[in-house]
């Protein structure tokens, strides 16, 4: 029997990653293929595992916020703030109004920056360099606003137990909102490109479909869940100043890559809407309350909505300066089973698209 006659081979295993041009971060998949179809995907994580949850043994609970901010560089402020909210719940502290408003402002700013970043990377996975560059050009204004108000481009560094550490003036905030006007227009233009461009539609529509039941059962969170038609947004809990602003939860029903892209693009518009309200109603006063002494014995759970979905923080104190346990359940960690499910049945060339449309953040996942 010649080599040509040896058709219809069994399943082939193709390694994907850890170093892959499409992935900015290392993630390894063993893709089990039958011809071009993926029949199973086995993720292997651990390339970025640091074990930072154990660092609470070595760091003062007030200083740990700087480590918490570096769980992930994209949703850095929200990680810092989530840790702070958990510790504040433990201590029974109420953050002053201006601090809460600023936190909301930065959360939404981070959401815009993250979604624009995702849009660029998603376009890059299609080979649509033009959209990649356009999205990142728009994003530069957003990170400039972050640097002007919070002090850092990606790691904001303004989260603090008891409030926030930076207090930009009302004029600065108004100027920033005005500076972001062109970004809003640009976002609408990019949304139009995503919806109508045949290249994007060809690669995104009907690819990586995740049904509503499946997404819910697999514990997916964030845009991944909302793209499948489940209305679930932890901002409805009303933490920070979300109880005082008006916004709508964006949902789509198709559950494919296109739906996930559209949820994110439309969420950018909502975030701008929230930021407008925040700056218009910004109260005056202090931004933080001083925190001193030991945390009381106890525990606290806090849930927030990050750009990638629901995140959960847990702190437990034994009454000393070092917390007994800190735990963060990050959105991508919850999305991994759903990601594996979405990849199953896709063709090999679509795997990078699908993996990128869940917006994986590996350094969050592995901590």
């Amino acid at each position, binding site marked *: 029997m010649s080599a040509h006659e040896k058709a219809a081979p069994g399943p082939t295993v193709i390694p994907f990653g850890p170093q892959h041009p499409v992935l900015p971060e290392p993630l390894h998949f063993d893709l089990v293929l039958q011809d071009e179809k993926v029949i199973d995907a086995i993720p292997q994580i651990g390339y970025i595992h640091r074990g930072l949850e154990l660092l609470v043994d070595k*760091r*003062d609970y007030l*200083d*740990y916020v*700087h*480590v918490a*901010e*570096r769980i992930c560089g994209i949703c850095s402020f929200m990680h810092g703030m989530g840790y702070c909210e958990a510790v504040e719940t433990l201590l029974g502290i109420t953050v002053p109004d201006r601090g809460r408003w600023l936190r909301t402002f930065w959360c939404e700013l981070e959401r815009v920056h993250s979604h624009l970043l995702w849009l660029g990377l998603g376009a890059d996975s299609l080979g649509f360099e033009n959209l990649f560059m356009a999205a990142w*050009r728009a994003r*530069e204004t957003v990170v400039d606003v972050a*640097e*002007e*108000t*919070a*002090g*850092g481009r990606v790691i904001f*560094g303004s989260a603090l137990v008891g409030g926030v*550490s*930076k207090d*930009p003036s009302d004029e600065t905030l108004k100027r920033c909102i005005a500076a972001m006007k062109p970004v809003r227009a640009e976002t609408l233009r990019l949304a139009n490109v995503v919806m109508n461009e045949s290249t994007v539609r060809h690669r995104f529509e009907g690819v990586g479909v995740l049904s509503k039941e499946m997404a819910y059962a697999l514990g997916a969170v964030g845009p991944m869940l909302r793209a499948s038609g489940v209305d679930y947004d932890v901002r409805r809990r009303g933490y920070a100043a979300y109880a005082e602003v008006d916004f709508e939860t964006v949902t789509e029903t198709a559950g494919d890559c296109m739906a996930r892209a559209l949820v994110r693009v439309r969420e950018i518009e909502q975030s701008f809407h929230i930021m407008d309200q925040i700056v218009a109603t910004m109260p005056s006063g202090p931004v933080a309350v001083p925190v001193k002494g030991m945390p009381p014995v106890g525990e606290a759970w806090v849930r927030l909505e990050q750009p990638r979905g629901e995140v959960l923080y847990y702190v437990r104190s034994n009454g000393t300066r070092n917390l007994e346990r800190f735990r963060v359940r990050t959105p991508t960690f919850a999305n991994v089973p759903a990601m594996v499910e979405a990849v199953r049945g896709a063709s090999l060339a679509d795997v990078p698209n699908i993996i990128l449309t869940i917006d994986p953040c590996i350094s969050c996942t592995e901590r």
Partner: protein
Amino acid sequence: MARTAFRNFFTKPATRRYPFVVRPVFEATRGRILNDFPKCILCSMCAKHCPANAIVVDKAAGLWRIDRFACVICGACIRACPVKCLAMSNERAKGIDFSDIPGRTHEHNRATEPAAPKPAAPAAGTPNA
């Protein structure tokens, strides 16, 4: 498409020609940590609170040293400082060759900079680039 071409014709390029055009830094930017050394009491609170272990304080030798490369510019030292001699500058530290050890860390020494009895002029010696 004609509209895009037309628009691109009249808009400025998006690129900032970096080495020639440097954007002025924002006031709030976290750039690097400076020490107003005459005020410093070498209590090593900053070293204790530094999450990246970038600061070394040796009270006996009168030495305060920060490693610019290990520093994560979080400002924990500034909050911890009891005499408020530390401050955040908004100018960033620049990338340097690894062989250039003296540029890597920034050192203050009591032998060359005596302690001031009252708040005095900023520390001598320009902080490294």
